[in-house]
């Protein structure tokens, strides 16, 4: 049965070097459609680097990455935005635009995808209502609490109905209640059909969910991880 599931992310022998530093070395990993994967490991292990490679925030030094069938090494400039529209990304530092309202922050995704304001409105509102921010759409991010900001970021990541959700330490700077709420939203997204990859060292979150865990250490996959093979 497992074999029949579509591989949505395939990393083969992927390395990323910064100067002489190997942030990732020889990473090989398949993620299937609608999988829920934790990437964990100590600080500096390469978790963020791996996430960046997937949305093309960085390009791999070696190896091959396929995301939804697109080879990232051979992607054209025009295809990059199209790839990114299939992916929702959530960051530890939220990355909201402070000079735009909550509504505009979320709507930007759909604007960039070429939707008309009328088409956008119901989608933006339902995404914001879904994360519980529906009554604060005209406020600016700086006045929101950390948890609220991250909920806006989740709404932004989900509003385009992406196939893949990538989250880099989404709960890293949140209190436990807010963290639990964000995590719950990600689980709902997963149940709705998204493939979710979360980089985190929040052990509690990992154990409470019990999904697949990929462990990195100094840029390598450790032997005890689930799926894939140890790289060094």
């Amino acid at each position, binding site marked *: 049965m497992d074999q029949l599931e579509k591989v949505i992310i395939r990393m083969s022998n992927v390395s990323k070097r910064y100067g002489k530093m190997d942030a990732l070395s020889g990473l090989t990993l398949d993620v299937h459609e609608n999988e829920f994967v934790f990437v964990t490991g100590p600080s500096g292990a390469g978790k963020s680097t791996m996430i960046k490679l997937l949305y093309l925030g960085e390009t791999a030094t070696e190896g091959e990455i396929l995301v939804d069938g697109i080879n990232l090494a051979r992607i054209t*400039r025009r295809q990059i935005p199209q790839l990114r529209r299939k992916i929702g990304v959530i960051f530890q530092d939220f990355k909201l635009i402070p000079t*735009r309202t909550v509504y505009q922050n979320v709507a930007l995704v759909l604007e960039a995808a070429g939707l008309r304001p009328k088409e956008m409105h119901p989608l933006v509102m339902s995404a914001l209502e879904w994360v519980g921010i529906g009554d604060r759409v005209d406020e600016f991010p700086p006045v929101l609490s950390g948890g609220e900001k991250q909920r806006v970021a989740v709404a932004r990541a989900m509003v385009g109905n992406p196939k893949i959700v990538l989250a880099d330490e989404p709960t890293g700077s949140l209190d436990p209640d807010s963290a639990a709420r964000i995590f719950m939203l990600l689980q709902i997204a997963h149940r709705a059909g998204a493939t979710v990859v979360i980089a985190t060292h929040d052990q509690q979150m990992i154990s409470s969910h019990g999904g697949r865990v990929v462990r990195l250490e100094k840029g390598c996959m450790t032997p005890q991880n689930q799926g894939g093979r140890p790289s060094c």
Partner: protein
Amino acid sequence: MLMFAVRRALADMASHKFLHTVSIVTIALSVFIVSAFALFFNNATDFLDAWRKGVRVIAYVGGPVKDDQRAFLSETIAKLEGVASVKFISREDAFNDLKEKIGDQSSLLDGLDKNPLPDAYEITLTDAYRELTDIEKLVKKVAALPGVEDVEYAQKWLLRFNGMYNLFKATGMVLASVFFIATLLIIANTIRLIMYSRREEIEIARIIGADEKFIKYPLFIEAVVQGGIGGVTGILMLCLAFAAFVPNFAPETGFAFFEMRFIPMRFGIAIVLCSMLIGWVGCYLSIRKFLTY
């Protein structure tokens, strides 16, 4: 797509009011100075043309002229290149003319027992033959004719004006190119500052799937609008300056055949379009450096 870009460009301009205002004012000043020069040349060219049209070369004949000599000179001068017509003005005619002109004071002339004026030929030039060098060539030829003692035209004055005109023209061109480059740099710099102040936003837009057009269009629109507003403002400033100074100035010059004109509409539009084009190029330059996927 374009509507979005326009909306976002306008919103961005509103949120960077100061930057845009400074930039627009500077562009307006450049345009003002360049178009002031254009105004000057337009008028100076018209002025020279008008003056040349009125140019008459007068050849004075030494001593009384016999009838056959008179006809000979008339014919010879008429055959010279660039001569439209020749009119003989006898010393008597000239004297009577003078008397008439001074009117009441003509008694002053009564004291003269002899007419002091020489016979003369008044030469009118063809339209094609009005360049200063042409006129000088003709003057030399006429002066070399037997019997011609002196040839007169407002030579020095024209020379001086022509020299000044050329000097101004050169200065104007140099200035225009300096301001052209300055405007280009100002716009490029403004766009660069905007991109810098918004680099985070641009980065975020990219991550969520914005393509190049989505990021670039508003910046181009902003630059072109800047150039356009700056251009129009500059022309309006010139318009005001013209309205304020020229009426006080024209009557005193006393050149009845000449009236100061504002730069033609076509020219103004060309300047504004040029300034918008500069905006586009300026934006292109700064974007090429900064925005690479």
